[in-house]
């Protein structure tokens, strides 16, 4: 296998993953705040793509135009593919979800499915049921050659633009006033209200931001593939939702990580040999060991009540995670004397089982190094990988954004 092949497969996987991530962020943010899966979110993405295509077609963009005119058309398409989904996201929340807030969880979920159907049919009514296609531009097929490897410019644009948007979102949530309001609302809506936060406004804002990101995703997809079907949002939405769950629903960096893992799995799974794929399992194993040895123990240490914190106790908690085969198993089998220790031991043994499983899979793959999986198996591979990850990390790669009850 050549390096060119691997680089181009990687860029392909990253591109797809970033698109999934843009959509997944909307699912995960809304879930974080409302504990509700907005199943109509995939359609918002489709609408973004359609609106972009419609704008470009209306303006009659083509390569005969001057570069400035083309840039103007693209700018108009971006603006339209952000503003229209924002408006739709806002209206859907206002009309279909807010009146049902506080009801049994299944009710807004049904409403979301209904909204999704309405939106899909509306797209057919407005734009017709044939796929929308934009004229091929020099830009969309342009590529650059780096070190003998040909890379599509648009793929790089997608990766860079998405990364910038995600950085912006992280800043928004972490450091701004409205971001603090979002986090407070997601942890305890009632308490947030009584601390002076207008939660209705905060929730509307969450929908608007998520829809804008999905809209940009739609724009990027129509530019990248040149056409889009009215029901594209279903599959993209499903995959993005999966990515959000995979990364840990409600967790913003998790959605990005989950989407990249999904995009990469889909692309790599059928494009390279098992011997190469095995290295990813090894990487997963390293990550798994990091989680078991460093990340989780560090977090658990914070759970020790201040008045019980002694160096010996901290060490025995760390040993449960770091020397699981001995200390973890021993604690698990011994009489239950300490809640934190025994819960941790159970957790550590589960993590260890996952890591051992990964090691075995890697070994099997190395033995069959030269086999390549047929393309038709792509969805199956993706599914198996997801199941394995979720089986051993039920709350997703980076963990759900669960509020720790105190």
């Amino acid at each position: 296998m050549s390096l060119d092949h691997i680089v181009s497969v990687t860029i392909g996987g990253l591109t797809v993953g970033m698109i999934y991530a843009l959509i997944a962020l909307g699912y995960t943010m809304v879930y974080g705040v409302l504990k509700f899966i907005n199943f109509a979110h995939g359609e918002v993405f489709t609408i973004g793509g359609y609106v972009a295509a419609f704008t470009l077609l209306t303006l009659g963009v083509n390569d005969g135009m001057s570069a400035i005119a083309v840039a103007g058309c693209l700018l108009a398409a971006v603006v339209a593919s952000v503003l229209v989904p924002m408006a739709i996201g806002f209206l859907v929340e206002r009309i279909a979800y807010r009146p049902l807030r506080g009801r049994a969880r299944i009710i807004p979920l049904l409403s979301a499915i209904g909204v999704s159907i309405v939106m899909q049919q509306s797209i057919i009514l407005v734009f017709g049921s044939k796929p929308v296609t934009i004229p091929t531009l020099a830009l969309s097929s342009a590529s650059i050659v780096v070190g003998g490897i040909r890379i599509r410019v648009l793929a790089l644009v997608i990766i860079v633009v998405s990364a910038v948007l995600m950085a912006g979102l992280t800043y928004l949530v972490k450091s701004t006033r409205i971001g603090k309001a979002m986090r407070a609302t997601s942890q305890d809506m009632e308490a947030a209200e009584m601390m002076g936060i207008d939660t209705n406004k905060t929730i509307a804002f969450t929908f608007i931001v998520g829809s804008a990101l999905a809209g940009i995703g739609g724009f990027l997809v129509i530019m990248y593939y040149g056409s889009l079907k009215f029901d594209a949002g279903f599959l993209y939405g499903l995959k993005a939702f999966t990515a959000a769950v995979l990364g840990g629903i409600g967790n913003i960096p998790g959605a990005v990580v989950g989407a990249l893992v999904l995009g990469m799995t889909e692309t790599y799974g059928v494009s390279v040999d098992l011997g190469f794929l095995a290295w990813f399992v090894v990487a997963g194993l390293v990550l798994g060991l990091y989680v078991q040895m460093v990340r989780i123990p560090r977090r658990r240490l914070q759970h020790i009540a201040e008045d019980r914190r002694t160096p010996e106790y901290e060490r025995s908690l760390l040993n449960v995670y770091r020397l699981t085969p001995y200390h973890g198993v021993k604690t698990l089998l011994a009489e239950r004397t300490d809640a934190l220790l025994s819960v941790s031991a159970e957790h550590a043994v589960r993590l260890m089982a996952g890591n051992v499983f990964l090691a075995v899979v890697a070994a099997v793959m190395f033995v069959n190094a030269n086999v390549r999986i047929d393309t038709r198996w792509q969805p199956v591979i993706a599914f198996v990988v997801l199941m394995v990850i979720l089986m051993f990390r039920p709350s997703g790669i980076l963990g759900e954004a669960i509020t720790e009850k105190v």
Partner: protein
Amino acid sequence: MGTILELQGVSMSFGGLKAVDSLSFDVRENEIVSIIGPNGSGKTTTFNVISGLYEPDSGDILLKGESVAGLRPDQVHDKGISRTFQSLRLFSNMSVLDNVLVGMHSVTDAGLIASMLRLPKVRREEAAMRVKAREILEMFPGRFSGPRQQQPAFSLSYANRRRLEIARALASEPALLLLDEPVAGMNPMESREVMEQIKVLRDKGYTILMIEHDMHVVEGVSDRVIAMDHGVKIAEGTYTEVANDPQVVEAYLGKRAAEATA
């Protein structure tokens, strides 16, 4: 001294149960008023009605003469009523400092675009808020110093979480502070400390309405005490007056005990 809070015949029922029954009382400026009463007597419901979580069925709630009944909780907070909770409700995954900053939400006004662009005005406002948040945390000397301000709230000890709730409620410099069982679950030493803290707050000019079961604390800080039972105010006055009121004794200990003491 002006009247800060005035309840006029406030009633609140859930289904057939009258949780609060035509309750009237007032809280004057710079006063500490305690509400006492057995479990289920409607104290926390009263707090929830005042803070806008429920709209009263009838009656009116005035803050400095202006009606706040029927406003949303965030609007009530904007008007100047802030509170703590009987069962702690901190934003537990957020840092200690961020919890206090959320409490200031209603007194800041940086717009979204301005704060994304980090305009100098926003940066100044943010810096000022941080300084103020730290000052508020310093009101609990040694409890929230240095690196502890960056820790997530869930990592704090129980007593510190209670203190942080008070700090968060103070962040907006409310005209009226509602404390729902501020010393619940604390040991005697800790509750004495909180008691001193509450007195300090009064010296700083705060007006406080408090629900409390710990009679030492009620006796120690209250200017006035209101006793409730079955949603009705059964007595009002100084601690000694209320504690010796036969109806109050009966509500706590039963009819026979009340007769025995009479």
